[in-house]
């Protein structure tokens, strides 16, 4: 990994390059965000190979949907992250992926996701890098379920036996914590 080869562009430059379909945008996006995107994908889909395939799909979709990105509605990374997460969740819930895992319970997705994680605990993922532990456990659990594991906040509430309002509050608190830490 030659650091000199890494490309870093400003958000605006990146968006412009992407919109005019300049391949430098992909190179830059890969250098800047492939790890962050793979981090999200890998925590939803625990198989390394599938996750890397999904990362590839994500880049293709980012490229092909570049015209649909509206910078007034949010940051580029948020948009890309949602693409990556949606592709991963779709994959997780797709028939062929479930069949490949020989999972019998195809009706209840929440149970399925839960079960899948228990059955095939991905030591590779955990071995690479531990989750950042700067949040209070009750905040971190909720945020990670929503942000990293592909649960909806409604599913999270059901899963954790919490009122929906509490889940929303905890998500907000968790993010406020992060803002203090990072901003």
């Amino acid at each position, binding site marked *: 990994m030659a650091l000199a080869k890494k490309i870093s562009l400003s958000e605006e430059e990146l968006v412009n390059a992407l919109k005019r379909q300049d*391949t430098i945008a*992909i190179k830059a996006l890969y250098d800047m965000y492939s*790890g962050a995107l793979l981090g999200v994908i*890998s925590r939803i889909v625990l198989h390394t190979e599938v996750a890397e395939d999904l990362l590839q799909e994500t880049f*293709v979709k980012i490229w092909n949907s570049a015209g649909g990105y509206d910078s007034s509605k949010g940051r580029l*990374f948020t948009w890309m992250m949602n693409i990556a997460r949606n592709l991963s969740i779709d994959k997780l819930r797709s028939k062929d992926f479930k069949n490949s895992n020989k999972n019998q319970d195809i009706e209840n997705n929440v149970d399925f996701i839960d079960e899948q994680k228990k059955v095939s605990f991905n030591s590779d993922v955990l071995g690479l890098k531990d989750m950042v532990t700067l949040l209070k456990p009750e905040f971190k659990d909720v945020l990670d379920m929503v942000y990293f594991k592909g649960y909806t906040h409604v599913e999270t509430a059901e899963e954790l036996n919490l009122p929906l309002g509490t889940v929303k509050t905890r*998500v907000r608190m968790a*993010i406020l914590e992060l*803002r203090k830490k*990072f901003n």
Partner: protein
Amino acid sequence: MEEVKAYIESGILELYVLGQLTATERTEVEVMASKHPEVKAEITAIELAMEAYALENAIAPSAALEDKILAQFTETKAQPKVVPLYEVKNDVRIKTLRYALVACVALLVISVAALFSVYTQLKLANNQIVSLSSEKDKFATTVTKLEFDKAGMQNQIDMTETTEWATVKLAGVANSPKAKMLVYWNKKNKSILINHSAMDLPKTDKSHEYQLWALVDGKPVSLGVFGENAKDAVQQMETIPRAQAFAVTIEPTGGSVNPTMEKMVVMGGVTI
């Protein structure tokens, strides 16, 4: 402003950034963000925090993946070029069709030229055939004429050499001083022959022909009619046992019972 603050604190903006909202809810947030800069700023702050959190939790892809994805990418990038390639393919097809059209037109021109040439030659050949045919007809006519004349000549020679036949010369009368004709009369069987090649009579029209008469004791006796264009040079007429003179008149076709005297063209007395 309290309303905006409450909106921010409701936690909906976090769910917006996390992609947890329905399309309607998202639109609502976007409307709020465009109206209130505080909402927009809050969203950006949340986004930056989540971005940082994601980067903190990044997992480096395997080294081979970068090349694989970027390679895939050049392919993906090549896709828009597939469209012009397709068009080029179309162009090639159009070009091919254009060549085919040009070839067809050229073939048509050549065909028309060849047809015209053949037509010209055919016309020439037809003209030659017509001209040859007319020449042939001319020759045939000449040959017929020659044969006719030869037969007449031969007859005249025969007549002069024999003693059996008497030759009676008929000379032109006042109406036709230049007219002349020969009549042969057989001394034995009294048959009469005329020789078309040895006669020069005034022309007749289509509705008239010549009639030969014998004058027997002052009375005319018809010996038959003959036309201007005889098939054979020598023609046999009616037999007459005796006569003092012969004469030819022009009569309506088919002949008359009595000769039309004013239409007499030749006459000659028998000298034997």
